[in-house]
C-alpha cells in the first residue's frame, strides 16, 4: 500500500548498528564533491541561543564552507523528539547531551566516537573539569565534549538571618549550623521555613549523600543501602520531621525556588541559574547571599554539565567534529561566560559570568569543583531516577511517613535489578 514509509522504516532500523563503527571518512574537504556542509545544531535552552549563535559565527570564520543552523526544542520535548528523529532519520548532526542520557545514546551506537580524532588533533580536554570529561566517556571512548558545568551553592535570605540575629552561612558551616539556624528562623505563623530538604536529586539528595560520605552508584551496584548514604538522606527527612523544612507535598505545590523568591525560605540549595530570578528583582537581590554548601562529615556537592555530541549518522562527520572541537575551546568558553547565561567549563573563562552578578558570590560554584562528585549515571539512568522519586516519596511526607532506611533499602533492591539488566544485555 505505502512502499515509502515501509522502506524508510526498514532502512532506518537497519542503519542503526548496535555498536557504531568508526566513521573513518577523512580528507581535507568536508564533502566529497567539495560542496558545502550543512550542520544542524540541536539544543534546548532559549536563553543560550544568542551565545551559541555567536560561537557558531566565530566557528564559521574559520570554516566558511560549513553552514550551521540552530534547532531549538524545548526541554520538555527534547528527548522524545531526539529519539524519534534518530530512528526516523531527521536528527541534528551535533546536539546537546546530558549525564543521564549519554550512556544510553552511546551504547546504542547513535553517537560518533571522538577519541581517535581528539588524539590526532592533540586535544586533551585537560582544561575542563576531569570528572565532567569522564561523564561523557563510555567503554573507554569519548563521545561528548563538555561545554558548561554547574555545582550547587547555598542561597540564603539575609533579612531572615538579620531578624533572628544569627551570622550568615560561610565555608565553615556544617549541617548542625544549618539545623540550628533553621530552628531559629522557622516561623509557622508567617509560613517561613528554615531550609529546603526537597526530594530534588541534583540540588538536595546527591549533595547530602556525598557530604555524608555516601554514594549512589559504584561498579554497577546501587549505593542506597549503604549506611552513609542513608545517613545523608536522613539529614533531609529529619529536618522535615522536625518541621524545619517543607515536606514533599508542600514542595510539589510550591517549589523551593519560589518560596525563596517570596521570602518564605531562609536557605536553599540552588544551581547557578537559580540566581537569575533573585537577581532580576532588586528587593530580592539586596537580601540574597550565596555560600558554598555546608559540610556533613566532609565537604561535598555534585557536578554536572552539558556536552556537545555528534550524531553517528551525520553525513558530515568531519565538519560536525570540527564544530564540537571548536566549542570545547577557550573562545567558545569566553563567549558563553560573557553572555551570563551559563558557567563555561573551560578553565579560566568563567570570570565574565561571575562579573555579570557582582553582588552575588558566584565564585562559590567554582570553589567547590575540586571536591565535587560527578553526577551518577548509567545506561538506564532515567529508569532508576524515576524510582528514587516514587520509592523515597513516602519518607518525605513528614512525621508518620515510612522510615527512610526502609525506603532507601527498597530503592536499592529495585535499582540493583535495573542495573543488573544493564550489564546482562
Amino acid at each position: 500500500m505505502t512502499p515509502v514509509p515501509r522502506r524508510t522504516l526498514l532502512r532506518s532500523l537497519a542503519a542503526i548498528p548496535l555498536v557504531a563503527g568508526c566513521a573513518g571518512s577523512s580528507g581535507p574537504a568536508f564533502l566529497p564533491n567539495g560542496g558545502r556542509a550543512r550542520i544542524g545544531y540541536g539544543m534546548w535552552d532559549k536563553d543560550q541561543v544568542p551565545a551559541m549563535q555567536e560561537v557558531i559565527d566565530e566557528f564559521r570564520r574559520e570554516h566558511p564552507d560549513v553552514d550551521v543552523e540552530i534547532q531549538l526544542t524545548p526541554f520538555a520535548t527534547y528527548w522524545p523528539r531526539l529519539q524519534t528523529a534518530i530512528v526516523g532519520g531527521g536528527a541534528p548532526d551535533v546536539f546537546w547531551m546530558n549525564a543521564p542520557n549519554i550512556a544510553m545514546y552511546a551504547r546504542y551506537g547513535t553517537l560518533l566516537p571522538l577519541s581517535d580524532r581528539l588524539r590526532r588533533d592533540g586535544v586533551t580536554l585537560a582544561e575542563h573539569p576531569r570528572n565532567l570529561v569522564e561523564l561523557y566517556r563510555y567503554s573507554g571512548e569519548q563521545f561528548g565534549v563538555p561545554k558548561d558545568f554547574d555545582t550547587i551553592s547555598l542561597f540564603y535570605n539575609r533579612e531572615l538571618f538579620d531578624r533572628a540575629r544569627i551570622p550568615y552561612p560561610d565555608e565553615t558551616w556544617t549541617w548542625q549550623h544549618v539545623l540550628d539556624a533553621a530552628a531559629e528562623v522557622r516561623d509557622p505563623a508567617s509560613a517561613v521555613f528554615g531550609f529546603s530538604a526537597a526530594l530534588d536529586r541534583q540540588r538536595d539528595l546527591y549533595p547530602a549523600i556525598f557530604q555524608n560520605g555516601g554514594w549512589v552508584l559504584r561498579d554497577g551496584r546501587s549505593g542506597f543501602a549503604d549506611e552513609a548514604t542513608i545517613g545523608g538522606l536522613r539529614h533531609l527527612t529529619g529536618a522535615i520531621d522536625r518541621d524545619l523544612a517543607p515536606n514533599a507535598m508542600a514542595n510539589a505545590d510550591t517549589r523551593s525556588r519560589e518560596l525563596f523568591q517570596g521570602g518564605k525560605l531562609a536557605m536553599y540549595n540552588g544551581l547557578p541559574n537559580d540566581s537569575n530570578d533573585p537577581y532580576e528583582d532588586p528587593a530580592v537581590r539586596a537580601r540574597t547571599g550565596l555560600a558554598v554548601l555546608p559540610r556533613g562529615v566532609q565537604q561535598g556537592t555534585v557536578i554536572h554539565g552539558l556536552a556537545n555530541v555528534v550524531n553517528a549518522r551525520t553525513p558530515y562527520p568531519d565538519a560536525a567534529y570540527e564544530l564540537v572541537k571548536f566549542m570545547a575551546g577557550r573562545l567558545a568558553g569566553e563567549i558563553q561566560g560573557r553572555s551570563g547565561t551559563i558557567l563555561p567549563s573551560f578553565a579560566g573563562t568563567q570570570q565574565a559570568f561571575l562579573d555579570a552578578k557582582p553582588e552575588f558570590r558566584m565564585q562559590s560554584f567554582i570553589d567547590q569543583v575540586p571536591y565535587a562528585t560527578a553526577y551518577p549515571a548509567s545506561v538506564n539512568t532515567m529508569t532508576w531516577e524515576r524510582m528514587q522519586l516514587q520509592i523515597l516519596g513516602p519518607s518525605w511526607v513528614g512525621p508518620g511517613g515510612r522510615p527512610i532506611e526502609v525506603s532507601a533499602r527498597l530503592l536499592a533492591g529495585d535499582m540493583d535489578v535495573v542495573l543488573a539488566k544493564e550489564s546482562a544485555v
Partner: protein
Amino acid sequence: MSETVLRSRSARGSRLGSVVTHAVLVAGAVAMIGPFVWQVLTAFKSQPETASVPPTLLPREWLWSNFSDVFATLPFGQQLVNSLIVAAAVTVGQLAFCSLGAYAFARLEFRGRELLFALFLSVLMVPKQLLVLPQYQIMSGLGLLNSLPALILPGLFSAFGTFLLRQFFATIPKDFEEAALLDGAGRFRIFFSVMLPLVKPALAALAVITVMHSWNDLLWPLVVNTDPASMPISAGLTSLQGQEWTNYPVLMAGALMASIPMLLAYLALQRQFVQGIALSGTKG
C-alpha cells in the same frame, strides 16, 4: 381557568425561569473565564513576580513590554501565518472529506459498512503519542520534515469528524432524500444540495473544534518541525519554556495575541451553528 390566568402564570414562570437561567449562566461563565483572566493579568507581570509567593492577583506594575518581547524573541508574525494556513487547510479538508464519508455511513447501504465503520472508530482508540514515531518516519520518507504540509497532511483526515457528522446526517428524516431521489437527482447532488445544508450547524461545530485543535496542537508540530520559520504559533510559544524556568509573562502575552484570530473565527462561525434549521425551507 380563564385564559388570562394561564398567561400570567406562564409569564411569571418564565420571569423566574429567566432569573434562574441567568444565575446559572453567570456562575458558569465565571468558572469558564477565570483562568483566562489570570492569563491576561500574568501577561502584564514581570518574570520574578510570577514566581513569587503568595501569588499576586494584580500586577505590581503593568508591563506592556511583554507584548513587544514576543516579537523580539519569536518570528511571531511568520508563525501566526503558519498557524492560519494550517488551520484553514485542515478545517476545509476535514469538512470536505469527513462529510462525504459521514453521509455514506449514515445513508448508503454497502458491503462491509459495519467493518469499515469499526475501522474508522478504531482510529480514535489509538493514543496519538503512539503514532508520533511512525508518522515521523512517513514524513521523513516523503521528505516533508520542516514543512507546512507535514503539519497539514495527517490533520486532513479525521475519524472524529466523520463520526460526528454521521450522527447528524442520521437525524435527518428520510423523506427529504426520497423526494429528491424521485426527482431523479444523483447521489452526489442529493448530498451536496439537500443533505449538506441540513447539517450546517454540525459543520460549523466541527469547524470550530478543528480550528481549535489545530491551533493548540503541540506534540506533533514540535516533533516534526524544528525550524522556527515553519512552526505554528503553539509550538513557537513553547520555546519560551525552559528546562526549569519559563518566561510566563511573555508566554501569556504571546498566547493572548495568538488567540485573537481564534476568537474571530469563532464569532464568524457561531452564527452558523446557532442558527436553527427549518425543514420547511428546504422541502421545496
